[in-house]
């Protein structure tokens, strides 16, 4: 971390940690790796997550799923909006981190951070609307009430985009949790610091522990156990290259995970609902209606 105070005062470095189950553990492996800026200058050491960290993160995400998916959509919207509020307060920090991570100018990094904050607001507003857009009553030909409702798929493994370390990251996390999923996120391998710092924001934004779990390290190494994990329900391959994506999609077939394949995305453009619906299941409930009763007196 660059020192930003007077030359005669030695700066305090931040120890970057993982974010699992609402806590900030070091990697179970005890290993770290060097993170540099775009010019190769050392920024910090990030935890090098192991398979076991991935396993622990899945356990935390599963544990959090019941309460988070069961929370009211209004409540989830409030929580997501709270994330935007907290981010706004730490805007300068993230501008700095994004500038370092992605080699952007201050003003370009500021635009990215602003867009990321606005993205939380966008998805905060979606939580209590998506069910109305993609669900609804079905006019079946019979005396039945029939309603389709979208429900979260469950635990989603998210490989965050490699290039867009912050806006891209927010753009894949927010839609997944907006609908009630919980996520295990593998941060951008080369630029994990904004993700690890986002954890600090989430931890102070009423996002229940375990809803978002963030791991840093080698994407391929962490993603493999996630893709084959039988208690992971879906995987977003945004941060996988072609070969890795194929390998992970193949592994994901073992328990028929829902797979969102990598696709070219301009994260600065307004998002649609695609990432919201990618991790939704439609549940359709039937119930008889029938008549109130046949009567009528005719003496």
């Amino acid at each position, binding site marked *: 971390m660059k020192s930003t105070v007077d030359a005669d005062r030695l700066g305090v470095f931040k120890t970057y940690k993982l974010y699992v189950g609402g806590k900030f553990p070091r990697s179970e492996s005890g290993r770290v790796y060097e993170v540099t800026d775009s010019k190769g200058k050392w920024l910090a050491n990030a935890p090098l997550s192991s398979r076991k960290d991935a396993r622990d993160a899945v356990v935390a995400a599963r544990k959090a799923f019941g309460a988070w998916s069961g929370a009211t959509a209004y409540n989830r919207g409030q929580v997501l909006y709270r994330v935007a509020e907290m981010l706004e307060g730490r805007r300068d920090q993230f501008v700095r981190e994004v500038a370092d991570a992605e080699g952007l100018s201050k003003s370009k990094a500021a635009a990215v951070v602003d867009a990321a904050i606005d993205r939380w607001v966008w998805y905060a507003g979606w939580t209590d609307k998506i069910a109305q857009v993609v669900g609804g009553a079905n006019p079946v030909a019979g005396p039945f009430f029939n309603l389709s409702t979208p429900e979260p798929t469950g635990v989603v493994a998210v490989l965050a985009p490699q290039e867009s370390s912050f806006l891209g990251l927010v753009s894949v996390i927010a839609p997944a949790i907006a609908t009630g999923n919980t996520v295990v996120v593998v941060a951008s391998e080369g630029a994990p610091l904004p993700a690890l710092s986002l954890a600090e924001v989430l931890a102070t934004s009423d996002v229940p522990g375990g809803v978002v779990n963030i791991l840093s390290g080698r994407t391929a190494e962490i993603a493999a156990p996630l893709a084959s994990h039988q208690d992971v329900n879906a995987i977003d391959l945004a941060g996988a290259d072609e070969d890795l994506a194929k390998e992970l999609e193949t592994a994901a077939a073992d328990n028929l995970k829902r797979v969102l394949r990598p696709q070219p995305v301009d994260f600065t453009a307004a998002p649609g609902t695609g990432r919201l619906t990618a991790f939704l299941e439609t549940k359709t409930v039937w119930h*008889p209606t*029938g*008549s*109130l009763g046949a*009567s*009528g*007196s005719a*003496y």
Partner: protein
Amino acid sequence: MPTNAPAALSDVTASDGALRRFLHGLPGVDAVGLEARAASLGTRSIKTSAKAYAIDLAISMIDLTTLEGADTPGKVRALAAKAVNPDPTDRTTPHTAAVCVYPDMVATAKAALNGADVKVASVATAFPAGRAALDVKLADTRDAVAAGADEIDMVIDRGAFLAGKYLKVYEEILAVKEASGSARLKVIFETGELSTYDNIRRASWLGMLAGADFIKTSTGKVAVNATPANTLLMLEAVRDFREQTGVQVGVKPAGGIRTSKDAIKFLVLVNETAGADWLDSHWFRFGASSLLNDLLMQRQKLATGRYSGPDYVTVD
């Protein structure tokens, strides 16, 4: 308190509260599911020998009925003659189970039947509305029995039932049962007025607890009378009642059953719900009038291979 309830259930009629709790504790009825089941049994295809069996069985189960303000001794005598000998061209045709008339016509019917093995059933208890004092209803019943009725078709007090006064309904049935003496008692619920299937199930159990020999859907005087669904529900009730108490109770759908096809559907309901034990005129009846001629025409068709016509059966 007097009770006709079988020992196994004697405590449920101990008080208004106990009776209400019991009746409201019966399993609910899902209307769509019940109607779907009745409709599905209605798709059974009854052919050839099974059809011949069913037609004769249905004829033997008819309570051949006339319940008009315009009933006269002549009309009742004609009805009785038809009951005994439904098809003058074919003496192998079974007779009907009974004729069903108003109390003042019982004596006429009895005389006209002249000892034939056809019962006389009389409606009673201020049929069809049942809106009279208990004394009047009991006098009506005794009248009919004294005139020779073998069976009494009473109506329940639907007003009391719908007001939740189940014990009042129960006690009234008890009293009528007593007044009926050895005549078999059919208890009419007027299901069209009870309206809901839950009510029909409750009324069925209420009637059986009070000692009904038959439970009967309707008077034939309201818009909705016997339907496959309400009859199916009552068949379930008698089946369950026997299962629980060992007492077998008959069922009589009445009103609206006009064709052989309909009647056969009802027999399928009996066969596949209550079971073969009820496939007998002692345990199942049709309250009907025009049904008989249709059954006779179908019977002639089966015998001759030709479709029959209304001129080949007798008008009542």
